[in-house]
Every structure is written in C-alpha cells, then in structure tokens.
C-alpha cells in the first residue's frame, strides 16, 4: 500500500532527490523561471510554496529554516524582502507551470515553472524580451520556410530557441 506516501520518487535515492530539489528551488528563486521536466516541476511547487510560506512568516526562525534548504544566502534574503509584498495577498498558487512539449533525446515532457509575478516584475521582463527579439530578427527570414514544415511534422517541438539554432547550423 502506498497510503500516505505522497510525492514522486524520480528514480533517485531520497538524498539525491533532496539535494536536487534544494538546487532547483534555489535556481527558481534566483532566476524566477526555470525549465525542467513535468514531474520535477510539479514536485518543485511543494518546495517553492514552503519557502514562500516561510518568507511570509518572516521571523528569524523562518529565515534559518529557509537557509537550511536554499543554498544561497542572497537568494533567501531577497526572497524574504520581496515575499510579503509580492505574495502577501494570496495564499497559495505562487507558481505557474506551462508545458513546453517533449525534449529531444529522451522525449521527456518538459515544462517551464515560474513564480507568479507582480506587474512590475513582468514589465522588466518584457523589456528584456524586446532586446532579445531585435537580435533575432536577422535570423527570422531564413527560418520562416522551415517553420511551416516544423508546424506539420514536429508538433512536439515547442522549444522555440533550440530548434531555431539547429536549423541555422543545417542551412
């Protein structure tokens, strides 16, 4: 019976899984969004929610508990600074998972997990995106033909960046 055995195993020892999710939750708060497999993303939500709950509590004990999981001090301090303002009004639903498709190589379902951002943070991101798209515009034209084929053949290939670079090499 697997009663009261919540969580996934991910073919790892428990110590390996713990170490991995500590790394992942650190990365998530550091970079706001990370790309991983569906199963890991879903499990990572639990870790992220726990960290944000601690950050909202905000006392010294909570901070030390967070420091025992998140590997970088700066990330913890930043989280504790932001969290009450950013997540204070909501209880839960701190993360969003968007499915990206399947990974080339092992066909693992890949998804993007991100912190639900307030408006300010979102605007900053959009500015960054604009800069990136300018650089990409040169490569656009060559890709357009290939895109149509992609749409028909590779429905699973939803990662926009990696396939485009692969096409550049081919052409």
């Amino acid at each position: 019976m697997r009663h009261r055995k919540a969580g996934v195993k991910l073919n790892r020892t428990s110590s390996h899984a713990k170490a991995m999710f500590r790394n992942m939750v650190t990365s998530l708060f550091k970079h706001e969004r990370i790309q991983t497999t569906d199963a890991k993303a879903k499990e990572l939500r639990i870790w992220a929610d726990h960290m944000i709950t601690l950050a909202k509590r905000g006392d010294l004990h909570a901070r030390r508990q967070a420091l025992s999981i998140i590997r970088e001090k700066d990330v913890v301090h930043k989280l504790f600074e932001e969290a009450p303002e950013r997540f204070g009004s909501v209880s839960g639903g701190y993360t969003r998972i968007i499915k990206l498709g399947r990974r080339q190589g092992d066909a693992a379902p890949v998804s993007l997990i991100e912190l639900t951002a307030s408006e300010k943070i979102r605007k900053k991101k959009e500015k960054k995106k604009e800069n990136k798209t300018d650089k990409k515009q040169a490569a656009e034209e060559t890709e357009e033909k290939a895109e149509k084929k992609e749409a028909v053949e590779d429905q699973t290939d939803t990662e926009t960046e990696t396939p485009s670079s692969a096409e550049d090499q081919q052409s």
Partner: protein
Amino acid sequence: MAVPKRRTSKSRRDKRRTHHKIAGINLSICPQCNEPKLPHHICGNCGTYKGRVVLESEEA
C-alpha cells in the same frame, strides 16, 4: 498436444494486424496564430499560452 495444422498465411497474418495501428496525435489550433499546437501546451510557433507571451519567438 494441440498443434496448428496450417502455417498462418500472409493474408491472415496481415488481416490480424490491421488493428495494430498508431493513432495520430491530437492537435488544437493556436488562438493567436492559427497554427496547430499540442493541447494544454505553449504554442511552438508564437510562444503564447492562454493569450500570454511566455517565450519570445520570431513573430512575437
């Protein structure tokens, strides 16, 4: 012991296998760019999901 009297002909073998086939993947249409996409997934063409730009792409 029960033993087959006849070798299964190519015809019978192939008839049996007519049901061994792979169904195509289900696709939905991206409401932004009208390209086919996987349901409940980000659109590979325009990088949007539920009307929100998730990943910057060539068209966005």
